[in-house]
């Protein structure tokens, strides 16, 4: 049986950031931003 592609890169540099931590912080920052935005939205319109 054919094995999954052996040429796959398992350790690869994160694009745009120095490491993947940059991306993870972006995701967390985006989540915090959305929660704050939704909170302000909730308060403003209620």
């Amino acid at each position, binding site marked *: 049986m*054919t*094995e999954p592609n052996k040429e*796959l890169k398992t*350790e690869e540099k994160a694009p745009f950031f120095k490491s993947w931590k940059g*991306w993870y912080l972006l995701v967390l920052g985006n*989540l915090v931003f959305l*929660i704050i935005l939704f909170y302000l939205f909730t308060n403003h*319109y*209620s």
Partner: protein
Amino acid sequence: MSLIDWTVLLGTLLFIVVYGVWKSRGSRNINDYFLGDNSMKWGTIGLSVMATQASAITFLSTPGLAYESGMAFVQNYFGLPIAIIIVSAVFIPIFYKLKVYTAYEFLENRFDLKTRSLGAFLFLVQRGLAAGITIYAPAIILSTMLKWDLSLTILITGVLVVIYTVSGGTKAVSLTQKYQMAVIMGGMFIAFFMIIDYLPDYLSFNNAIHIAGKMGKLEAVDFSLNPEKRYTIWTGLTGGLFLALSYFGTDQSQVQRYLTGTSVAESRLGLIFNAILKVPMQFFILFVGVMVFVFYQFVQPPLFFKQAEMEQIYSTEYRDQVEQLESAYNQNFEVKKQQLEDLVVAMDKNESEKVASLTAQVQQSDAEAKEIRGELKDLLLANDPEVETKDSDYVFLTFIMNYLPKGVIGLLLAVIFSAAMSSTSGELNALGSTTSVDFYKRLIKKEGSDKHYLIASKLLTAFWGIVAIGFALFARLLENLIEAVNILGSIFYGTILGIFLVAFFVKFVKGNAVFIAAVIAQIIVIVSFYTFEISYLWYNAIGCALVVLISMLLQLILSGVNGSSNSGHTA
């Protein structure tokens, strides 16, 4: 439905199916068939992950949920980005390093064969039944609303999915999902702008949102610690994290989507795409439902959105009472509409005292409208104690059918079918790969040619397609089936996640300990389910915690008894 609608609906669906079959033709081996020859870029992976998660019920039920109870449901997704970070950082590199086809192969590498088989078996039971419901749930709503034959609706949806999923495998699933997501989001945006366009001329978009807010529909974040509240930021960040971690980390229907990437980076970016966009997307779908709610404050809504139930009760002794309720509901609507019109004028003039007074009046009228609907539901139950009185799933479809123009109706129905097909294809693909790789290739026929395994994989995917269609056809004979499948999912999901969490994070635990712990945990969960009356969602957490704790305890005991570790390998 008009000829234009049929043309748009069938044209869209057939184009996607034919395109998927054509573009993915000629799979040579099972790497190609199940992992798309690891050729997918992050954009395709991201859309594929999103499309697998978003079923037709997402687009039918979510706007209805917002219509009924507002935006609070969005909080359920707050844990998802955190879960994706964990999956990206911990799960993906190991899956790639071990070059696995399924998540359960990792369990053999980390523990042993029996633990792998147990994990794969639990997935097949749970996802095999869920695939049937993914087809059945929208079919029952569409057939009820449009008076289509239920069996025919199920067969058409199911057969179309089986054709391209079996013929093209993962590549066909991912490619079609990309276009299905385009149809879904395009259709939802068009619906949203049409709803805004249908609002009265004197009502600005800003005032429409203010009205929704004043009627309690925009509470998107709730910091309350009250455990009786179903959706708060805390339940979202804990329960939502837990569910998303189970789903993205251990459910093969998702794992297979991101394992098709050319590299770890592409897979991670595909998931991060979801981590960033999923919450705003759910917010938008809920917001569409809120705008439908505002629309129905100025255009008379039906007393009950399930028209078939109304037609049925009209032929009974309750007819007079229902007519009285309808009359009261219509009167209430006219009074509330006038109050809202006055409120809009007061808001435009910045008359804060008048705004406060009219807001209170509108809220009072809204409460009365809810009471009238409650009385109708009591009558429906008195007439038939088995009847489902929740009609929110029918709200958005009622709006589509009654108010959207020709052509757009066809497009929105294509949205619903696309969503049903995209999630079903991901599920069938995963069921086929798990059965082929974790059972057939591993336990039944260990040595075979590429061609042999390719044919076997196609046959097994087709088998699961037939099971899903058969289950969907049979589903109408069972009461509360959707809830039954959700319960089944909650009962097994916790155990599977527990096994994976031990595999990744509790390095000293080995194969025998985790296997025995999983079996004990599963038995305790099943016995508890029949013994205690707690919400079935808790069994996710209970099953997972039991596996982790019992396996650690057992490992300590076994290590003490043997003086050394028992069987199993460490990743």
